[in-house]
């Protein structure tokens, strides 16, 4: 059974699982009370959801379906699942959000190798998983994902997703073209384990060579070693917004040795950006910021190989967001409540940690003094969401959906002191604060993926401009009634509130009018 491109047409398949569920799965499959030298295989059924970006499809293990004694038994003929367990599993899918499917998982005891190497299925494994999943897929609603998993005692997973074409007529149903061997299938190339303070990505069959560039990363190798450098080299980081903060972030990450960056922004380089876009050239005025940022990243990168992918668009629109759904971790530097809300949803539904940052400066608000704060936060499984920590409110996200020209001075969102017909003033932005925010965001990323300090911190880290102090915000968990933790792993089944970005729409209209 070789690798084939699956029917979704995406190049990569990942399994995504929370650390909590990974621990639960291992306790199901490898029990402490197994005293015999001949360890039995064990298994379970789980509810999965799926979600796709541009290149990558992810399967999310949402829950393990509890089993009664005797529902999964190990005999001389292999592992056997009782029909009552399948029946319970189908009930669990029908109780789940639309788009749910099933995974059959079993253990390979005593064969544990490296967690970076997936267990190899035996011929009986392949025969049984195909047979069981064929029947299950026909008992599930069309389009429901079905997959098989094998776990060894090192915690390594082998995941294979199957797709069977659905017959449209009774005649087709009898045809071999729709039979058990008509499946396309794909093996997962990585597993992402997400917890409140860590993201671990195990890539199978991929190794970033850093030897060629060892001199360039010598100072960081001393801190986190070649394993840490390899982790960074294997990471795909998405950046939303390539303005004052995002452009610095992109360069920082490229220099640190991140292997792939995905840059999404719709804006162009303007004269007023020249005082804060590091490395920008005057001849880049009028060019998309993503192009300038990609150039800087390519020059700065220390990972080999290094890739940078750009997309001109808005993260609050479906096509722009899709590119970021390929990322292992997302850095948000777009100063928009709409984007923050969209990425807040994504961080839970797709279990992609989102590190957010920004600065608010108010000039002359108190006794003529400049006040404000720079803040960074991280949303995702186990972390308080951006909304609960105060990074945005639903009302701010609502008003960011309006065409700015129609939210006029006679509305309640008029800025204090703003006259009728006046354009809203530009928010102050200073390169030093942008650099501070970018640095804190990168530290947060290094903490999440490498375990560097500050470890185990939750909520917002804030720099108070008028005090010159750096503190942690008071909110370390979501507020009562916040549903976001219950969305973890829903993938495409969760309605992420994307829509039309009014600023990008306006720019598109201007582009069309100019014929460019």
């Amino acid at each position, binding site marked *: 059974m070789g690798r084939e491109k699956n029917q979704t047409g995406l190049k990569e398949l990942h399994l995504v699982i929370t650390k909590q569920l990974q621990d639960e799965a291992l306790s199901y499959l490898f029990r402490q009370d197994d005293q015999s030298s001949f360890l039995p295989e064990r298994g379970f059924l789980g509810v999965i959801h799926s979600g796709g970006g541009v290149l990558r499809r992810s399967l999310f293990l949402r829950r393990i379906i509890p089993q009664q004694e005797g529902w999964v038994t190990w005999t001389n003929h292999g592992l056997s699942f009782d029909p009552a367990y399948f029946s319970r599993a189908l009930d669990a899918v029908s109780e789940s959000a639309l788009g749910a499917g099933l995974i059959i998982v079993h253990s390979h005891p005593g064969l544990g190798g490296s967690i970076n190497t997936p267990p190899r299925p035996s011929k009986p494994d392949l025969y049984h998983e195909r047979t069981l999943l064929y029947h299950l897929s026909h008992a599930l609603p069309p389009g429901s994902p079905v997959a098989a998993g094998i776990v060894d005692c090192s915690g390594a997973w082998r995941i294979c997703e199957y797709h069977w074409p659905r017959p449209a007529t009774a005649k087709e149903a009898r045809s071999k073209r729709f039979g058990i061997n008509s499946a396309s299938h794909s093996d997962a190339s990585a597993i992402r384990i997400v917890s409140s303070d860590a993201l671990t990505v195990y890539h199978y069959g991929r190794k970033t060579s850093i030897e060629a560039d060892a001199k360039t990363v010598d100072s960081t190798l001393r801190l986190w070693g070649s394993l840490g450098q390899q982790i960074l080299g294997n990471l795909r980081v998405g950046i939303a917004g390539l303005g004052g903060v995002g452009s610095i972030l992109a360069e920082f990450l490229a220099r640190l040795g991140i292997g792939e960056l995905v840059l999404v922004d719709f804006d162009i380089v303007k004269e007023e950006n020249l005082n804060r876009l590091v490395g920008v050239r005057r001849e880049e005025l009028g060019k998309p910021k993503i192009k300038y940022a990609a150039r800087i990243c390519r020059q700065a990168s220390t990972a080999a190989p290094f890739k940078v992918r750009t997309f001109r668009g808005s993260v609050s629109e479906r096509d722009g967001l899709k590119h970021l759904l390929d990322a292992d971790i997302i850095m948000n530097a777009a100063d928009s409540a709409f984007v923050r*809300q969209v990425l807040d*949803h994504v961080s839970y539904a797709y279990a992609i940690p989102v590190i957010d940052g920004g600065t608010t400066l108010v000039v002359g608000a108190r006794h003529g003094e400049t006040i404000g704060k720079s803040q960074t936060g991280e949303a995702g499984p186990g972390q308080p969401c951006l909304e609960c920590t105060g990074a945005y*409110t*639903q*009302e701010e*996200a*609502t*008003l960011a*959906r*309006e*065409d700015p*020209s*129609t*939210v*006029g001075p*006679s*509305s*309640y*969102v008029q800025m204090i002191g703003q006259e009728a017909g006046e354009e809203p003033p530009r928010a102050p932005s200073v390169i030093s604060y942008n650099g501070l925010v970018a640095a804190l965001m990168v530290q947060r990323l290094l903490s999440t993926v490498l375990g560097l300090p500050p470890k185990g911190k939750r909520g917002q880290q804030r720099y108070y401009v008028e005090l010159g102090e750096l503190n942690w915000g008071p909110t370390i968990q979501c507020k009562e*009634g916040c*549903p976001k933790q219950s969305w973890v792993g829903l993938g495409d089944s969760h*309605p992420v*509130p*994307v*829509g*039309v970005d*009014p600023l990008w*729409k306006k720019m598109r209209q201007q582009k069309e009018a100019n014929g460019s």
Partner: protein
Amino acid sequence: MDESQLPALLQEALQILRAERMEKARVDAIIDNWIYLWLPDVAFDETKYPPPYSRSLWVRIPLQFPFANPHGIITAEPLNPIDGHPIRGHNPNHDMCAPVRNLGGSQYYSWTWSGEIGTGPSLRNPRDILGVISWVERRIRQA
């Protein structure tokens, strides 16, 4: 108006609204992130407004409801309270009326969910559409 292309949560909200509160509520326009939802039977306070005490109007509901809040109402005639006080946020013939202008919509009230009379209830699920009607009526009463 073809509602089948609306997001599933909004479709569910509209079904609940029609089943439990306003059978004849209808979507008259879909523009960018917003629908213009026609409410045929909104109660007006007799002590503050002249008759009729049941009027129709449009409320702008985000396509991403309940993850975004309603913003603004549009009426055919100005609200004109009995005591004649000007109503904040009143924008006659505002661009926001354009999608329903041919249906008579001409008076835009740019009321936000977190307006001067306090924040509306938090919106979490499609059923909260019922609270939107109460918010519109309360907002008009206290305008």
